[in-house]
């Protein structure tokens, strides 16, 4: 039988106090679309759920010396935001493909990241955007680059007494062209078989200035593919070059997808090879349209 207490603090100070009181027996809940499912399916719940949903100060998207996204910002807010659509396309696309409208209306980006599913749709976009995660606790706060945030499936560096408050993206990332592809069997209500995000900046002669590639479901955590990124820098945007980047990224040195219920590892590898050129082309188009703006 489920029997948990449900507490609704009004601000961060009260939340830290409650965390202190209940310690590890409490768990934080935001939109609840992951936490509630685990509680219902396992018939096991923490003694206490501490809800962050009343903390309105953590619900915002701002551009001001970088992009600032409050952890309680819903996927729907990111999906509808014209700022996100125009400037951080990959993140907009990732958020817009989570679950259903009903899920996106309540599910938060902070929750998506803290849940740390290897398939999280906002993770690959945030990886190419060099997002920085702000974790606050009673003792103070620290900033963690997203590349160091994920430790394993459902595991992050966040301590039990810390709260993810903001995701910050450097302002220069707004000049990159970015794109995200969620490869799944269905168009909605599905987790990706593989997730691919690419960010490109182009030089005036349309050669590649900088390249960022991130994959989800290709390893126990979201990963960046440094080898393929290094290969692309300075090269021309040709089919052969992009194809080579796909080959590099799908090699065993770069990714290690596993067999799972959703599909076998070899297919994921194949799709990394196929999708990287496709997503890179979309990112390049996005970059060109920004240059012409």
């Amino acid at each position, binding site marked *: 039988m*489920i*029997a*948990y*207490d*449900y507490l*609704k603090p009004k601000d961060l100070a009260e939340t830290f106090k409650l965390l202190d009181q209940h310690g590890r027996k409490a768990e934080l*809940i935001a939109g*609840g*679309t992951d936490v*509630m*499912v685990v509680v*219902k*399916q396992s018939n096991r*719940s923490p003694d206490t*759920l501490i*809800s962050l*949903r009343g903390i309105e100060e953590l619900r915002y998207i701002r551009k001001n010396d970088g992009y600032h996204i409050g952890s309680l910002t819903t996927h*729907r807010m990111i999906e509808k935001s014209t700022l996100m659509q125009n400037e951080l396309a990959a993140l907009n696309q990732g958020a817009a493909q989570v*679950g*259903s*409208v*009903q*899920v996106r*209306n*309540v599910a938060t980006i902070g929750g998506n990241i803290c849940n740390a599913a290897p398939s999280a749709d906002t993770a690959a976009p945030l990886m190419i955007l060099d997002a920085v995660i702000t974790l606050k606790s009673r003792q103070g706060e620290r900033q963690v680059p997203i590349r160091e945030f994920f430790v394993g499936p459902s595991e992050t560096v966040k301590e039990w007494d810390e709260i993810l408050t903001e995701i910050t993206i450097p302002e220069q990332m707004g000049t990159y062209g970015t794109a995200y592809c969620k490869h799944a069997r269905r*168009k*909605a*209500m599905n987790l990706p078989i593989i997730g691919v995000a690419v960010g490109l900046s182009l030089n005036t002669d349309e050669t590649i200035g900088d390249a960022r590639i991130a994959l989800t479901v290709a390893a126990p955590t979201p990963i960046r593919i440094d080898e393929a990124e290094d290969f692309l820098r300075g090269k021309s945007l040709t089919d052969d070059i992009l194809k080579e980047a796909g080959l590099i990224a799908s090699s065993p040195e770069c990714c290690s997808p596993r067999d799972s219920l959703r599909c076998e590892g070899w297919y994921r590898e194949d799709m990394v090879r196929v999708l990287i050129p496709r997503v890179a082309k979309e990112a390049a188009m996005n970059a060109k349209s920004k240059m012409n703006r």
Partner: protein
Amino acid sequence: MNTVSISFNLNGDPVVADVPRDWTLLKTLREVFELTGAKEGCGVGDCGACTVIVDGDAVNACLYPIPEIEGKQVLTIEGVAKPDGSLHPIQQAFIENNGVQCGFCTSGMIMSAKALLDETPEPEEADIRSAIAGNLCRCTGYVQIIESIEMATKHE
């Protein structure tokens, strides 16, 4: 189990209830207010049979912790028709266009459609498909449902 006293607006009327803290909105609607239009299908946010509108947004009532509903405006299928009983154009269109077969998904479908049309009165077919992507129907194959929603936009 300790309860929480909740006051919110339900289909236009202010209501108050004492509910166990670990209940969901769906359980409260069905067991306290006896509004059984919202259904429990999967219970984990996949099927959309429990869809209701909270402050203008379609949500899965089965995943909505009841303490979160304090002060909110909740609209269920029972509040969609006018008080005199005349049906909403979406309801009328579902009837005229065979958008209903077994009926289990219907209230959720209509709530998702209403949330869409309230915000986007003239949606493209792609918008309709996206709006009901979280509502499973195992009878119709969705074609009549999409046509019903398209028809409703012309009624309005």
